[in-house]
């Protein structure tokens, strides 16, 4: 009986990764994204930029599409294109906010919508709808050696760069006025952060596609906020949720023969809903019963 349940456990959770290389690659790729995405997501959340991440993800599309138009499904071409598009939209909306009456959210919305429409148009010039699906939703089960190395490289670089910029970024988020009165670090910290977000979204779209890449960043971070108010713990919890969701999403996709990208993000979504209900730090149930109050 026990042997049978162990073997069932093995078949369900372990065997797919042991038997199939593409599953192992997918797990490594998704884990790399989840690890780097969690601290970025936490900062997006703290800076009230959760939707900015989403807008940036859309903005990447035309760059990737131009890369695709020139070189087909090529990793460097689509990466460079995506980075260029993402960074210029970030930069342009910053400039527009500074030099016109539009606020940053409005100008970002304008640029990302133009960018998205342009991207879809460019793709339709040459690509089939299969290609469009690939760019929009990625293909985590078809990660080749180069893409995998790229994802791992981006993940490592992100964690190191974020560690280096952490203090300035935290201060810029908490009290931008103070930071700008004592140093010039605010601007560089912001640019570093936005660049890392774009870089990770570009890395993410190879695996999850432009539309879902931001999911592995925001959902675990937003869930983690409901478990702890502490920034370090939030990041660790977010990473854990991201990793578990990656593995679980891949397994579900394997067993039920469904697309892996959406299932990874959906799994993270299940965690999110559970956190909203059960979260120890601001979850619904925690707030519900008026517990007896304290003396002081």
């Amino acid at each position, binding site marked *: 009986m026990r042997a049978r349940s162990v073997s069932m456990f093995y078949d369900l959770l372990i065997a797919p990764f042991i038997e199939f290389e593409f599953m192992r690659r997918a797990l490594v790729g998704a884990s790399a994204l989840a690890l780097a995405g969690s601290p970025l997501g936490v900062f997006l959340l703290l800076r009230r930029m959760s939707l900015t991440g989403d807008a940036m993800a859309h903005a990447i599309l035309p760059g990737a599409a131009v890369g695709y138009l020139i070189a087909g499904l090529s990793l460097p071409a689509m990466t460079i294109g995506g980075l260029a598009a993402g960074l210029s939209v970030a930069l342009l909306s910053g400039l527009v906010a500074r030099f016109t009456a539009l606020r940053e959210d409005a100008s970002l919305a304008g640029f990302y919508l133009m960018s998205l429409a342009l991207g879809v148009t460019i793709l339709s010039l040459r690509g089939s709808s299969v290609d469009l699906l690939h760019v929009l939703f990625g293909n985590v089960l078809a990660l080749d050696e180069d893409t995998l190395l790229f994802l791992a490289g981006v993940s490592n670089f992100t964690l190191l760069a974020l560690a280096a910029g952490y203090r300035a970024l935290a201060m810029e988020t908490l*009290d931008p006025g103070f930071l700008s009165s004592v140093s010039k*670090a605010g601007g560089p910290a912001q640019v570093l952060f936005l660049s890392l977000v774009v870089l990770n979204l570009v890395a993410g779209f190879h695996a999850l596609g432009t539309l879902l890449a931001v999911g592995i960043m925001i959902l675990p971070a937003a869930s983690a906020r409901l478990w702890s*108010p502490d920034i370090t713990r939030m990041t660790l919890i977010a990473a854990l949720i991201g990793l578990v969701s990656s593995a679980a999403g891949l397994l579900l996709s394997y067993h039920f023969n469904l697309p892996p990208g959406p299932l990874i993000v959906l799994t993270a979504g299940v965690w999110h809903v559970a956190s909203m209900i059960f979260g120890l730090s601001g979850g619904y149930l925690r707030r519900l019963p008026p517990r007896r109050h304290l003396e002081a």
Partner: protein
Amino acid sequence: MSAALRIHDLTLAYDRHPVVHHLSGEIEQGALLAVCGPNGGGKSTLLKGIVGALQPIGGKVERLACDARAIAYLPQAADVDRSFPIDVFDMVAMGHWRSIGWFGGLSKTQSARVFDAIAAVGLTGFEDRPIGTLSGGQMQRVLFARLLLQDAPIILLDEPFNAIDQRTVSELLELVARWRSEKRTVIVVLHDLDLVRRVFPQTLLLAREKIAWGPTADVLRPENLLSARRMVEAFDREAHECERAA
């Protein structure tokens, strides 16, 4: 006594409409100066000009005691995100930025100074409290503790006692007195004229133009206060270009 700040024919403006108009004067090292005047009179704008957050469109501010980034500045509505997960100790420790920068750790002495500053504002025991749980007065104490750490030769406070209870005000004023005894230059924007008369030896009465600047008793005369009141809110969409020599 040497000057800490020299203001030469300073004009500060938003969209070409001057808010501080042709202001000149000198602030001595160790001075304790109150800046008074009606709303819209340019008090906060003057502090922004001194700290370098707003570039003058005419004249200049000469900072003799230290460079602009060494000035400690507490803005009127400090744009602190109170929901950010940080505790009082770390918040106050931000005052060490100029010595620790992006990467430096806190030395033992520096940590001890953080604890001292927290003690000086009467918040001992609050070190681990998240800033989101503090009251308005406690938050203002935290901001003062951070100012203490900045160890700045020039300290600018913009209406620091707004919506703060009497006891907190008097305790924070003790810090101001301490800064003065340490020969720091302190400039405070205030509306409470009784407080100004009690505590501040020097006053600048500002209503876009300088109304009066000097010993507090001379500045806060009824005729000066009256003309300050008349000067305000004269924003004119069709205003002509100012012809006064720059």
